[in-house]
């Protein structure tokens, strides 16, 4: 971690979520964006089209989402902190390359501004439908990191965290935004300094394995004098294809997961509200958590012992935090037909109830409160 000066003058800004996303990326040191227009994410690329030339960075509009994530992977290996932004259908097109980025341990940030699906769906309406797409969309076994902001301020800050995590763990990091957060306008405070992670370099050591077979290897860029052989096929720690060797496949696929899971305690971030004496807990993330917090407050005014566990990290899943909830019942409000609730059910030791809204509107505190009280 290094403390650096922010590239924006410190102070208060009035950003929409997508603008804060772009500015947070620049603050984090992102100097490469490749993307393709898709609602409701396009403002991120539009702002970066103007801003990246200002800071000596590269903006490329690609011919589709497949090419966008491809260029991001190439840029990462050329040494840049790189990102793309899209929405659900675009993310679907990126999935093969996302698997490649996971397999080749390529650090990058992918912003998914979720909209109502499936397919083209409601291009401008908020939804939380991609939780499982980012987790399981690509083929095979792996772990990724996904964060979800609930405000414009947090969008800005999470972009910095996302780039740091991508570098620390050499993994694609997802920001799970949605059409509501993307177009929400709020005050965003920009600090004078921030902490950023740098890619770990070393000379003459393997780039695809560590001695204990559990950790994150150092990563060279092209042109640094290291022997770089990079492939999406199963490979040993030096990058050589070893597709017929069961030991190598087992070792690699295990490490790709273990390097995240063993550090889950460091990665996972949650926030608790009124949980101390709560009998009922809400578990929510993103824009939905804002409604859940308001519902929690209203419940308190009505004398109900309701608390909120807000997930800032969605993947790896905050299992311990949910398991540790000392309540009699858990409600999971989501803007989908029930995705996170399945994970909560898997780990919780009490009854878990799903609260859904799937019409492309933001769930309201009233709806959540009604679910708790009936």
């Amino acid at each position, binding site marked *: 971690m290094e403390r650096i000066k922010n590239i924006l003058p410190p102070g208060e800004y009035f950003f929409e979520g997508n603008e804060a996303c772009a500015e947070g990326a620049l603050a984090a040191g992102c100097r490469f964006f490749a993307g*393709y*227009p*898709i*609602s409701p994410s*396009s403002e991120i*690329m*539009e702002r970066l*089209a*103007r801003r990246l*030339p200002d800071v000596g960075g590269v*903006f490329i*509009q690609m*011919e*589709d*989402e497949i090419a966008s994530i491809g260029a991001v992977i190439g840029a990462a290996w050329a040494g840049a902190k790189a990102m793309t932004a899209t929405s659900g*259908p675009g993310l679907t*097109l990126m999935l093969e390359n996302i698997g490649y980025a996971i397999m080749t341990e390529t650090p990058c940030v992918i912003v998914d501004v979720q909209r109502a699906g499936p*397919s*083209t769906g409601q291009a401008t309406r908020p939804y939380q439908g991609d939780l499982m797409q980012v987790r399981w969309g690509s083929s095979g076994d792996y772990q990724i990191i996904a964060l979800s902001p609930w405000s414009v301020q947090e969008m800005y800050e999470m972009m910095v965290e996302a780039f740091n995590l991508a570098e620390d763990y050499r993994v694609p990091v997802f920001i799970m935004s949605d059409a509501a957060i993307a177009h929400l306008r709020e005050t965003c405070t920009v600090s004078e300094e921030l902490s950023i992670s740098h890619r770990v370099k070393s000379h003459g050591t393997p780039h695809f394995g560590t001695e204990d077979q559990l950790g994150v290897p150092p990563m060279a860029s092209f042109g640094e004098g290291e022997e770089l052989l990079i492939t999406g096929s199963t490979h040993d720690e030096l990058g050589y294809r070893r597709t017929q060797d069961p030991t190598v496949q087992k070792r690699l696929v295990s490490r790709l997961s273990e390097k995240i899971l063993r550090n889950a305690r460091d990665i996972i971030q949650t926030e608790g509200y009124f949980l101390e004496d709560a009998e009922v807990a809400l578990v929510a993330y993103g824009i939905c958590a804002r409604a859940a917090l308001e519902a929690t407050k209203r419940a308190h005014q009505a004398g109900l012992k309701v608390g909120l566990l807000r997930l800032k990290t969605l993947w790896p899943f905050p299992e311990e935090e949910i398991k540790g909830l000392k309540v009699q019942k858990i409600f999971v409000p989501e803007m989908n037909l029930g995705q996170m609730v399945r994970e909560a059910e898997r780990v919780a030791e009490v009854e878990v109830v799903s609260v859904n809204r799937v019409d492309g509107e933001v769930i309201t505190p009233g709806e959540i409160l009604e679910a708790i009280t009936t």
Partner: protein
Amino acid sequence: MEKHLFLAGHTACYGCGEALGARLVVDAAGPDIITTDATGCLEVFTTRWPQSAWGVPFIHSLFENSAAIASGVEAALKALGRQAEAKVIAQGGDGGTADIGLQALSGMFERGHDILYVCYDNEAYMNTGVQRSGLTPYDSDTRTSPAGKVSWGNRFLKKDMPAIAAAHGVPYIATATVAYPKDLEAKVKKALKITGPKYVQVHVPCPLGWKSDPALTVKVAKLAADTGLYPIFEMENGVITKVRKISKPQKPVAEYLKIQGRFAHLFKKTGGEEEIKKIQEIADANIKRYGLA
């Protein structure tokens, strides 16, 4: 009142060139067609409840696969012995054709499907709010090719889609414009009589994205053709067989550029004259290449 197969009541903007283009294409093709359409303005403004603009069967593909879905429709009709019942017309905008849809279009050309592919070229991604595409002209100001201190707008030339189609051995290729409706209709009719893949690219002004007066859509389109910036021609079996000559005396490109906000920076910033000169060179090269004079 004349009966159209592409109906009124859709939600396109005032002066939309694409709505006009689609009506001319569909009306010229007649009722015995099946249409596919990539994601974009045309899909969005023609299919909104409670009014569909389509008097013929219509299937929205996704963004990248209008040509692929059309390939499936055509091949299945053939397999079922129903190919005489309807012609297949695949449609897409410039982004859906020249960028994300190019791979599927290339496959459609290669396999030789009996499909007319129509690209409505309004020169940017208008449905998502005016971002550049592979068919956005040089120096055009869009949301992702913004003109400003360090840029004159889009730095790339229009992708030469007719030449790409020609390289696939496509037997009939044409460009057309909503400025000359009879010419466009004749090309659609002719294309549908030819067996195999056909490619027709129609220039369709977008007042919103081009920042032009909606009342001047036809005038803007005429100037594009008449300055040589949008050459109008037919290519059969790899040979240019017919061109629309530009009117004499030759109009300078500035006449076309100055009535569109997307080129306004060329007339305001120092150095703009040099850029306009480069655009004139593009037009002059077209005039020479296609013999438009």
